[in-house]
């Protein structure tokens, strides 16, 4: 139990995927313009990450390791992630057309989101058991969502600020992301070894 709590806290805050590993920057910068679409994106990523890490764990340990086919891990992981993203896309399209419009190209792009492949690969490399893998996937997605929401909140407020002309658009977004990453460094002393 202690292990699970540690994994949860360290993945959400300390080793945050976006601000510490700098994975998944594309949707982080692309969808953080508005809070409403950021929430939708965050939940999609949580869903895909949790299910991807659990299915990947099953396939990896029950099929690939048993059959000595570990070298296939990358291609199998991509296959799993792509299929899950497709399923998410169908659900979103069916049940929330407005969210589907708002997410646009970024929804299918979760397929190539390096955070999700990174999550699967880290999970395998660290030899987690099944429960740990599920918690890891969920907390990685939650960490992504937290950062995405913080960023979206800041960027919505930035709209009302007088940003110098040269910094408007992408530059101020990147500067904000950098400052946010510095803030998240403060979490590194959260758990005493």
């Amino acid at each position, binding site marked *: 139990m202690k292990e699970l709590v540690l994994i949860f806290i360290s993945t959400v805050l300390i080793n945050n995927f976006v601000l510490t590993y700098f994975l998944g920057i594309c949707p982080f910068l692309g969808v953080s313009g508005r809070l409403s679409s950021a929430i939708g994106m965050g939940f999609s990523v949580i869903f895909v990450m949790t299910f991807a890490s659990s299915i990947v764990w099953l396939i990896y340990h029950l099929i690939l390791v048993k*059959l*000595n*086919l570990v070298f*296939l891990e990358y291609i199998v992981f991509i296959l799993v992630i792509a*299929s899950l993203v497709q*399923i998410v896309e169908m659900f979103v399209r069916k049940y929330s*057309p407005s969210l589907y419009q708002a997410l646009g190209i970024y929804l299918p792009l979760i397929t190539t989101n390096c955070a999700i492949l990174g999550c699967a690969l880290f999970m395998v490399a660290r030899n987690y058991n099944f429960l740990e893998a599920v918690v890891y996937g969920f907390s990685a997605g939650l960490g992504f969502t937290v950062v995405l929401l913080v960023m979206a909140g800041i960027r919505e407020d930035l709209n009302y600020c007088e940003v110098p002309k040269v910094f408007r658009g992408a530059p101020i977004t990147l500067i904000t992301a950098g400052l946010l990453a510095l803030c998240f460094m403060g979490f590194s002393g959260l758990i005493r070894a």
Partner: protein
Amino acid sequence: MNEIIIKGLAVMGGLGLAFSVTLAYLSHRLKVESNPLVEKVLDILPGINCGACGFSSCRNFAEAIVAERKPFTCIPGGEDVNRKVSQLLGIQSQEVKRVKAVVHCGATKDEKKVSSFYVGPTSCAFVDITLGGLDCKYGCIGLGDCVSVCPAGAISIKRGKVVIDIKKCIGCGRCAKVCPRNLFELVPWQGESKIYFVACNNEEKVGYVKTVCERGCIGCGICVRIKDSPFYLQNNLSHINYQQIFNQEILEEAKNKCPTKCIQELDA
């Protein structure tokens, strides 16, 4: 060795099959009913996703007009498309105002003075925020941000000057959005053979204009003083009031009288 290949093939094939069956089943279960009318409207629309209507793609536009049934305008489609779509949806067809883009800088590379060179990404947007590249801070940078966004391929750059092919221009206004110096203007066009425009955007006094460009408008007012002239001066720069009704001869006369030859024409 063979064993690994066979096992790999079997695993990949099996997984692929399992996922594809799941996806096929779910796509059947979660199918979204789309309006067949949208497809029909989409077939009539030009399908170039130019964005002139305010929607990001022709599909979004088609969905919106099918849902709302309000009068609409598709500028690139022209009257033909608008009439057909209106008939299909049973709504009042609207008159289409046809517009063409002109660019308010007509100086070639040799005429524009450059005293500091720019080294960096080849994009006007970058040059615009630096001090290099071009002395005139109003003029065309000539790196072709507009060329790359034009969906009709109507813009080309000849000797450092933007040339618009009026026959190809669909009047979507994408170039106007992307130009960092706001050089483009969409002017009404009713099938005249020529479009005249002031090929300068420099609002400074004559002294400054002369130091940065040979082709610039010096604000002399010769074009304004012609009888019934649609020209007017604002901030030391001549403009054409396209809303005023005028005949083409006045414009031709103004073009010939202009001392710096910065009133130019485009053949339609």
